[in-house]
């Protein structure tokens, strides 16, 4: 049950009238994907974006208005363990970690602008001033350092009074005059102008008791009326008066640590996260219904996490939390949401929003991308046959052919295997690797192609052409490189220069099976289509305000199918340079409301070689075959209609049949593709398998156990 599941095959028979056909499905569960835990979360009010940093150093940017899609990410680094993340001055993102460096990220070029050492030892906390011009950093040696944010860099200004123990949390007063710094067993209040500590407030080690364990103040927040709210490891949330340096109110909310705190901009509510996985919402409510006196009351508990909630953020309408259990949970608050529709539902982001699996169809190989290594597997085979729903035994097991470790501390950004299976390419933030594979009698021989050209430093997306003769690389400067692959070496053919338009999301590539057309997305200008034979830009699909989540070009017809994060699917004919008739029809009618309410984005689109009317796409919880010849469903028809039993009459089947054939049998799906006419491969990742590999959670005592 646990551990690496084997591979099973199950044939599926679709209704003969629709002509879906019979497929053998490889159910793959040996992709041991475990995401890293979330460490920090920072919400940017101006652009409604969320920056999330994970324990392996990856920083992801989610666009909350584009259906919570992860548009950009910065790959992690082994030595970069981020402990603090903050937005400053609108569009600038800073992070600081245990290696003592402050890093600024370039959101346009999708790389790191610079890393500045703060010379205080490991950095534990960071906060940007409300005005956006200064940055405060709390270090291991107890010093609080003030940096000036200049237009292109940051500059050290001065040190505040040095404290005895490490500064674990920082908060600015909204006016920018005072600072609260939480440390071990005490909280200091500093005056910004003089840099001296005005008050030192001692925190009790235990609520009304004595304890040997030191009380660590994990989070502080400074309100504009001078109240300092602290969250500490004894499970208390305390309110302090910074003018007198005294404790005002004490709330014991948990048995375990309260690890994070975030206050809303209006300062009438804040949210805290505990180590038990509970998130509490505190609100400022009036004492009686018509009095003006208000007090802080703990209103709502939310239990959406199983492990420590190490980061919380408060947007104007939602509570955002993330922790060791790797989920990002966004909980819109009903009283703040204006339009009460499906948008106000809970969003839990668990699975990645991009493809981590590539497939070499002819050789039945799968390439899995991990943070520091790649795995190459060959699918098993069977000779048995069966009916719909049967599980067929494997005659030959799946084979782990290759475990390729990357050199260096950086994470892998993207990887790809050629359709013939003889080339593997992957890229980290600073290097590009290309390998040649030779198969001989069940043995595999790997050869690295050395001397990569200088322009091929870091790639955002890699794609091989259908005949495995060309390699397309989208670099992070915005340019697209076309490289011809020869036996054991390569030749640079052409570079498409970056087009105008800002980088909106990570670049996605698609190449037509006949090798003539290349599509690239990611900029605000729309999807560009290049002519590979003539090496020039052919056309640009008009820009749409939601980012592209998947891209593919159909064989023979050369229709470009684009899926966006708001679950819209467009079909654009490349030779005609216009949307197809089918696409216009469905745009006019609109998609089914259940289709639009899906949570997870479509990550892969593929086609049937013999049936040009079929489009196969999948997201994390379903896969769907769109049959363009069938009528489209309107809002009244049942979207998800699994196959009726065969003894029903044909008429009923024909009446309920519509273009969207959805199956939720295989979930959660990381990847689904058509290997050949009669075979599908579905890479699943059950959630329990991920949870089984997480760090230990806090013990919960339940009566009767």
């Amino acid at each position, binding site marked *: 049950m646990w551990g690496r599941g084997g591979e099973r095959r199950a044939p599926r028979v679709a209704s003969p009238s629709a002509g879906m056909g019979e497929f053998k499905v490889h159910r793959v569960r040996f992709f041991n994907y475990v995401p890293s835990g979330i460490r920090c979360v920072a919400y940017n009010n101006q652009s409604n974006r969320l920056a999330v940093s994970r324990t392996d150093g990856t920083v992801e940017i989610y666009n909350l208005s584009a259906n919570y899609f992860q548009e950009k990410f910065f790959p992690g680094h082994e030595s970069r363990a981020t402990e603090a993340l903050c937005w400053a001055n609108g569009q600038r993102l800073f992070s600081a970690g245990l290696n*003592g460096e402050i890093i600024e990220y370039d959101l346009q070029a999708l790389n790191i602008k610079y890393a500045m050492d703060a010379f205080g030892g490991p950095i534990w906390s960071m906060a940007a001033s409300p005005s956006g011009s200064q940055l405060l950093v709390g270090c291991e040696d107890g010093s609080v350092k003030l940096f000036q944010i200049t237009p292109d860099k940051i500059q*050290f200004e001065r040190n505040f009074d040095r404290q005895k123990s490490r500064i674990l949390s920082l908060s600015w007063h909204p006016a920018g005059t005072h600072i609260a710094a939480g440390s071990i067993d005490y909280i200091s209040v500093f005056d910004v102008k003089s840099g001296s500590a005005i008050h030192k407030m001692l925190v009790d080690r235990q609520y009304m008791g004595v304890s040997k364990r030191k009380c660590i103040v994990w989070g502080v927040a400074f309100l504009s009326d001078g109240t300092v709210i602290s969250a500490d490891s004894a499970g208390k949330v305390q309110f302090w008066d910074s003018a007198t340096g005294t404790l005002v109110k004490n709330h014991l909310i948990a048995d375990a640590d309260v690890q994070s705190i975030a206050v809303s901009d209006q300062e009438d509510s804040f949210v805290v996260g505990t180590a038990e996985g509970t998130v509490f919402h505190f609100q400022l409510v009036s004492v009686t219904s018509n009095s003006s006196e208000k007090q802080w009351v703990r209103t709502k508990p939310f239990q959406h996490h199983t492990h420590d909630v190490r980061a919380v953020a408060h947007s104007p309408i939602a509570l955002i939390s993330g922790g060791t259990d790797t989920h990002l949970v966004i909980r819109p608050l009903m009283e703040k949401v204006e339009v009460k529709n499906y948008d106000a539902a809970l969003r839990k982001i668990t699975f990645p929003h991009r493809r981590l699996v590539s497939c070499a169809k002819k050789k039945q190989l799968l390439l899995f991308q991990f943070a520091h290594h790649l795995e190459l597997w060959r699918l098993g085979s069977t000779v048995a046959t069966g009916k719909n729903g049967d599980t067929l035994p494997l005659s030959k097991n799946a084979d782990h052919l290759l475990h390729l470790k990357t050199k260096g501390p950086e994470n892998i950004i993207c990887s790809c295997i050629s359709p013939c299976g003889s080339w593997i390419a992957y890229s980290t933030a600073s290097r590009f690797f290309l390998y040649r594979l030779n198969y001989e009698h069940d043995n595999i021989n790997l050869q690295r192609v050395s001397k990569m050209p200088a322009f091929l430093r870091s790639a955002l997306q890699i794609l091989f052409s259908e005949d495995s003769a060309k390699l397309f690389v989208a670099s992070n400067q915005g340019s697209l490189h076309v490289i011809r692959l020869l036996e054991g070496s390569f030749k640079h053919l052409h570079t498409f220069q970056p087009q105008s338009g800002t980088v909106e999301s990570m670049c996605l590539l698609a190449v037509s099976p006949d090798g003539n057309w290349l599509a690239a997305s990611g900029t605000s200008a729309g999807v560009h289509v290049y002519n590979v034979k003539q090496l020039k830009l052919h056309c640009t699909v008009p820009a749409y305000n939601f980012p592209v989540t998947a891209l593919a070009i159909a064989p023979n017809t050369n229709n470009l199918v684009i899926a966006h994060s708001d679950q819209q699917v467009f079909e654009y004919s490349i030779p005609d340079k216009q949307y197809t008739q089918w696409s216009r029809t469905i745009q006019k009618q609109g998609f089914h409301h259940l289709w639009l309410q899906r949570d997870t984005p479509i990550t892969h689109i593929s086609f049937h070689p013999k049936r040009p009317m079929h489009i196969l796409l999948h997201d994390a919880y379903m896969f769907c075959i769109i049959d363009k010849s069938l009528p489209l469903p309107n809002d009244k028809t049942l979207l998800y209609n699994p196959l009726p039993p065969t003894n029903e009459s044909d008429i009923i089947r024909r009446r309920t049949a519509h273009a969207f054939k959805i199956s939720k049998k295989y979930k959660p799906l990381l990847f689904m593709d058509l290997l050949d006419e009669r075979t599908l491969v579905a890479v699943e990742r059950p959630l329990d398998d991920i949870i089984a590999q997480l760090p230990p959670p806090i013990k919960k005592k339940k009566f009767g156990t």
Partner: protein
Amino acid sequence: MRLCIAQWGLGSCRGRQNPRRLPFTSRSACVLIPGQRSGAAWVMVQLRPRASRAPVSASAMVDEGQPASEEEAEHGLLLGQPSSGAAAEPLEEDEEGDDELDDEAPEELTFASAQAEAKEEERRVRETVRRDKTLLKEKRKRREELFIEQKKRKLLPDTILEKLTTASQTSVKKSLAKLKEVNLQKKNEECEKGSDSKKAKEKVQKVQTVGQNKSYLAVRLKDQDLRDSRQEAAKAFIQNCLYGPGTNRTTVNKFLSLDSKRLPVKKAAAQFLNNAWGSQKKQNAKRFRRRWMVRKMKTSKK
């Protein structure tokens, strides 16, 4: 005014009289002579051994013209000037005292013979002292030579030492890791910006290459260790806070099985099966099975 003359030394302090350790030079003391208060306050006064008090005092009194050493001359002069008369009296008194005690007739002792005896003794004493000194000196010399030889044996042969000294003069200053270079640049920038409160880390690493075949490099890793150790300490701190002793943690299996325990129909734990159990046994079994199949096929073919 009486000048009390006393003799002490290492031997006499301990109550022993060690005639060999009686060089006059070491048996001197500083005494304040009241009559000469205006002048030099402290004067070196010769102190004599108790045993040979009588003859020595006589020689000191008389032997002014022939001092064996400069100090003796000083002493003789000093003693001669103020209190030669005073010194003589008590001694004579002592002699008289001895005579009164003894019934025998005193020995006839000429002055010259007594003087000669005293001189002889002095000479002997001096010579023994000199001998001792020379012996000690020689011993020390021998020891030093021995040490030098041993040291030489320990050190590398001369050729390499020469090379090292020439290399240190033209030492190559390199910084190995890129981090340190970047650190250095940043530090320089920071210094330029006028920040005082930075920790001055080690600026430069000396790299020495020895010999023609540069098969190894000597590098100071103290700085890298310092930074890494702080990072490790920080990581250990947070690990201890969150997962160390005193925290109430449990395994994932137990955590997920809590629900199945409370169901009306109790289910098994979430990770009930241990698939990693007996992996070696399973592998052996698989191999055996394959071999058995092959053998079976062979025999069936025959």
